[in-house]
């Protein structure tokens, strides 16, 4: 089945969106309305996000990585430190205009599930939401990391295949390199 013909019903999804830029928040809200999401909560700061995350259960959190005072990466780290709250394992998609390798790795290591480049393309966001819905992944909780299990499947390498994720490792070789959406996704696979 092609990606575009997949059928989804997001009407019962409860989504939190966080962005300090009111227009960026508007764009996200309208995209989710287009996706037929009926229950969206929105806020414009990390502090408000923390309050909502502690008080309500969300199925997905979409958050700006760049916010004054407290950025989305810091809030993600906070969510992943709260093992007693229902949103401890809620998928987090960070959205950002800056996708340097360094930033994407920080987002991943903070426990984000995915990073999506801004300006957000509805097709890309929907495909990422679809992916999160279809791919239930283990969650790791340790002293150093709390978030989606990033380990590759534990199978022997087929003959002739390089050390796992050699292509992803090559991507991280230059920290200055701007990452395309495909490059970013490769770091989260």
């Amino acid at each position, binding site marked *: 089945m092609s*990606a*575009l*013909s*997949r*059928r*989804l*019903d*997001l*009407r*019962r*999804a409860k989504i939190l969106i966080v962005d300090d*830029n009111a*227009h*960026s928040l*508007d*764009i996200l809200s*309208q*995209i*989710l*309305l*287009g*996706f*037929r999401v009926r229950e969206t909560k929105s806020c414009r700061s990390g502090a408000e996000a923390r309050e909502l995350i502690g008080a309500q*259960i969300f*199925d*997905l959190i979409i958050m*700006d990585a*760049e916010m004054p005072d407290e950025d989305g990466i810091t809030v993600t780290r906070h969510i992943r430190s709260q093992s007693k709250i229902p949103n*401890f*394992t809620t*998928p987090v998609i960070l959205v950002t*205009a*800056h996708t*340097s*390798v*360094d*930033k994407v790795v920080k987002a991943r290591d903070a426990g984000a599930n995915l990073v999506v480049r*801004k*300006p*957000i393309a*509805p*097709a890309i*966001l*929907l*495909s990422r*939401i*679809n992916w*999160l*819905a*279809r791919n*239930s*992944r*283990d*969650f*790791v*909780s*340790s*002293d150093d990391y709390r978030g989606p*299990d990033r380990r590759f499947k534990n199978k022997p390498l087929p003959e002739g295949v390089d050390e796992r994720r050699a292509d992803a490792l090559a991507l991280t070789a230059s920290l*200055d390199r701007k990452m395309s959406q495909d490059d970013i996704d490769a770091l989260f696979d």
Partner: protein
Amino acid sequence: MSVARVFRPDNRLAKILDGADPASAQELVAAAEGRVTELGESLRGYVREKLPVILSFQGAREDELFGGCRILGEAALGVAEVAGAANMGAIGEIARGLSAMVAGLDATGAWHSEAVKVHIDALAIVSRGDGARTPENDIVLARLAAMRSALGVAE
């Protein structure tokens, strides 16, 4: 020795796969794009409001540029996050590059004032038109991207 706990959490998002009245991804994307298009005028208004803040630094002295870099960076980030959705992709891309250079000052201490000035000048030229991605604007964007790459700007 720390111990890692590995478990499979409940995937609440999976409910979107089993709804009573699902729509195709194509329909949902089309609806979302339509709604974003309707925001166009308000987004363009926001970008036009922010552009003078950035362009006020055109021809600025070195100390003025450095002193105002935070204001410049905030305005540029705002434009970068939104302009593409308003069909002003060329403006958005230049603003993103500007924002990346200002962010680089915090991250690495590197301040590329001449490159910043070139970006502001390019923004002034591109914003004389509608700021959309055109073949001509793409040439400008490619040159600016090459400049930032040569300077090692993390984007």
